[in-house]
């Protein structure tokens, strides 16, 4: 649905030129929810703004529904933009218009008459749960309600594509979840393709099918979301996955943890299981085959799209030799093993 081909974006000229995007290639399939993540300043925003030509790429092609937007004249671009809805971090609602009139704006721009506007706006009020707020002004609404208005407005022209520029970044976690639910609903019920950018892995985890990781203007990793979470290939990918999954260590453990091995200290390990290995009876194997005791300190199971991801924090105890053998065994298994440190038994 969206094809980005060899897109480069350079700001400025000569020695002061800043490259914002480097040879980006990306394909968003029809009906998918596609997430682009990266740190601030990585070029995410520039990338999504290239999809509706709010930024013109320096080179490359941007195809939406088969149409190359970089080749259109002003009039053609305006028409194409009616097929591309967009929502923003700061909502960008008109303070001078009521909820109803805000949603009606894109239709007014297309010269729709008031009957057509009413026919389009009312189902959107229903869909976004704003029926009782129809005559309110944005200043009377909460952040989540404002984003709902913005979503309804973006859908008013029945676009095929919805672009979301950090749409939940200004919202609290609870509101974020409800907005993400709404986006997922829209995607399912209206079949709209969604391209979103975010710095929150939580967003990707909850609603995206595919994800691309962008760093310093380049796309460094691209994968199906479940696979990305279990098998990130780049260091930055690992880091992002970690921020989405990590839980704080149990109370007091951090202080007892030593970086160095020493006699009588026991290792604290973290195992990450995914796919089939979730079912493997690893812990009981350790106890039986190596006479190692396993104390579980923390455990979590995450369902990310179709993938199940399990994480286990445990302390191993036994003879040094037994522990060494157990660790070697774990390394040969289809799990990820990390040693967080060593603790003195209490």
């Amino acid at each position, binding site marked *: 649905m969206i094809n980005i081909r060899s897109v480069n974006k350079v700001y400025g000229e000569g020695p002061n030129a800043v490259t914002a995007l480097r040879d980006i290639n990306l394909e968003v399939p029809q009906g998918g929810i596609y997430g682009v993540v990266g740190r601030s300043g990585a070029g995410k925003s520039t990338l999504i703004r290239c999809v509706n030509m709010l930024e013109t790429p320096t080179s490359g092609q941007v195809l939406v529904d088969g149409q190359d937007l970089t080749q259109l004249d002003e009039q053609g*671009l305006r028409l194409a933009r009616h097929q591309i809805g967009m929502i*923003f971090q700061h909502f*960008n609602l008109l*303070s001078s218009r009521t909820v109803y009139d805000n949603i009606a704006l894109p239709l007014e*721009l297309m010269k729709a008459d008031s009957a057509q506007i009413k026919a389009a706006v009312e189902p959107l009020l229903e869909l976004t749960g704003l029926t009782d707020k129809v005559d309110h002004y*944005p*200043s009377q609404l909460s952040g989540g309600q404002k984003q709902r208005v913005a979503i309804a407005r973006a859908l008013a*022209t029945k676009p095929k594509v919805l672009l979301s520029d950090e749409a939940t970044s200004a919202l609290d976690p609870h509101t974020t979840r409800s907005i993400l639910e709404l986006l997922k609903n829209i995607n399912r019920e209206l079949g709209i393709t969604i391209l979103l950018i975010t710095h929150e892995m939580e967003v990707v985890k909850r609603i995206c099918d595919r994800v691309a990781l962008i760093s310093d203007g380049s796309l460094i990793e691209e994968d199906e979301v479940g696979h990305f979470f279990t098998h990130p290939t780049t260091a930055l990918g690992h880091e992002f996955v970690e921020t989405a999954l990590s839980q704080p260590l149990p109370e007091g453990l951090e202080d007892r943890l030593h970086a160095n091995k020493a006699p009588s200290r026991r290792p604290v390990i973290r195992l990450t299981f995914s796919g089939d290995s979730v079912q493997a009876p690893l812990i009981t194997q350790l106890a039986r085959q190596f006479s190692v005791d396993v104390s579980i300190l923390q455990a979590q199971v995450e369902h990310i799209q179709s993938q199940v991801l399990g994480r286990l924090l445990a302390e191993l105890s036994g003879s040094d030799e037994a522990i060494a053998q157990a660790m070697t065994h774990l390394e040969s298994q289809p799990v990820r093993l990390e040693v967080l440190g060593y603790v003195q038994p209490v």
Partner: protein
Amino acid sequence: MSSLSETLSSLSMLATPEQLLQATGETLYMVVVSALISTALGLPLGVLLHVTRKDQFMSRPRLNRVLGAFTNIGRSVPYIILMVSILPLTRFLVGSSIGTNAAIVSLTLSAIPFVARLIEGALNEVPPGLIEAAQAMGAKPMQIITKVLVPEALPGIFNSLTVTVVTLISYSAMAGAVAGGGLGALGINYGYQRFDGMTMLVTVIILVALVQLLQSVGDALVRRVDHR
């Protein structure tokens, strides 16, 4: 009204209540007409000054510099000098260089750049994200101006126009000094030239009351359109 007129008659001043009334009418006439014309011309100029800036959606940096320069020249000529220096133009336009109509020409001319700069300032307050959102919806430049920019800046625009009207009242009094008519002329003729302090005092009181009234009307209008 009659009791007011009796009170005025009982004051020991040389100007008659009828003269005061007429002068007040003349002042209002000058202010209202020049405010209307200067808004009609200053609003589009202010919009142009804003939208042609180099980071704006109708960026025309060279046009912007030319318009800006003209506006600055208009703003920097002191009113009293502008008034006398454009007398030939005034005579050509209204057939006379004295009287309220003559004053309207110079008042309007000095107010246009004033209105334009104030409105440009009000438009600068509109968050750029709104313009971007409108562009993403496929709005034409004219639609961005009429449906987004001006409605969103309306509270600021009404504030600007209130400031303009109040300024025009004080300028119209200055026009009175060179036979422009209105309260200013009355105050100068009686209060200054004939040493009639009471007439001076009464004209000042009327001017103060006018300013207060127009400012409250302006504030009420701003409150009405401000949903921010």
